[in-house]
């Protein structure tokens, strides 16, 4: 079951990247990018890393895609990225993808002993022995936000 799921979603990952390459609209490319990130989260689930799977969904598929879409919509950046013709029938692939995702999610939800590495153990390590890494992450976010504010203020002047 896991092997078959792996091969099916591998094909989907490659197809989503190919569609990212082929699409002529930036928003469509971001949508295919979100599909690709969901597939990576499924791979983390197959590797029995539920924390990484959830983090991938929340941080990347939720946060990063939202930041990109908000940045594009508020700034009015040109969303045409190429001259290749748009492909028809992509909705069939997306529908099949979501059906498969739903099926695998249900199977993983009812599977027994899927957590080889409990999230509790990871959190104890992360907030205990590896707390300097968390501090580093917070400094990284602060530096990124300050850089963003600096760029935009510089533009206003």
């Amino acid at each position, binding site marked *: 079951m896991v092997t078959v799921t792996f091969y099916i979603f591998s094909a989907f990952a490659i197809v989503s990247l190919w569609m990212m390459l082929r699409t002529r609209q930036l928003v469509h490319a971001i949508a295919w990018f979100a599909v690709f990130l969901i597939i990576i989260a499924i*791979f983390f689930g197959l*590797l029995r890393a539920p924390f*990484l799977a959830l983090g991938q969904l929340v941080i990347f598929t939720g946060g990063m895609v939202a930041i990109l879409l908000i*940045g594009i919509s508020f700034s009015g950046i040109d969303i045409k990225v190429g001259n290749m013709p748009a492909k028809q029938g992509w909705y069939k692939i997306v529908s099949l993808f979501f059906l498969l995702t739903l099926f695998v999610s249900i199977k993983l939800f009812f599977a027994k002993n899927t957590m080889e*590495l409990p999230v509790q153990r990871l959190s104890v390590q992360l907030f205990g022995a590896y707390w300097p890494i968390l501090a580093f992450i917070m400094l990284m976010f602060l530096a990124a936000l300050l850089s963003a504010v600096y760029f935009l203020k510089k533009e206003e002047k």
Partner: protein
Amino acid sequence: MSYVILALVLFTLGVYGVLTSRHLLKIFLFLEVMTAAANLLIGAFAAYNKINAVLGQIFIVVVWAVSVANTVVFVTLAIYLWKKFGTVNIDALREMKQ
């Protein structure tokens, strides 16, 4: 072994996308694809390492932090270039530089 091959294929597609795209934000998307492929490889190695699987996952969390900070800076830079030069096409930006 399957995860190694898959990560290699995804990384190669990411490199191809970076080399062939001309839109700044699309180049960024493919850079993130390369990061995700590398994360997948690290995650696979961590999952098969029974002694210390936590370390690999924590490393991936750190890479996530760098990626998200990178996103904020990259989107801001794209907005800045769009407002200043009216384009985010790297060929046009290169011509302006010359």
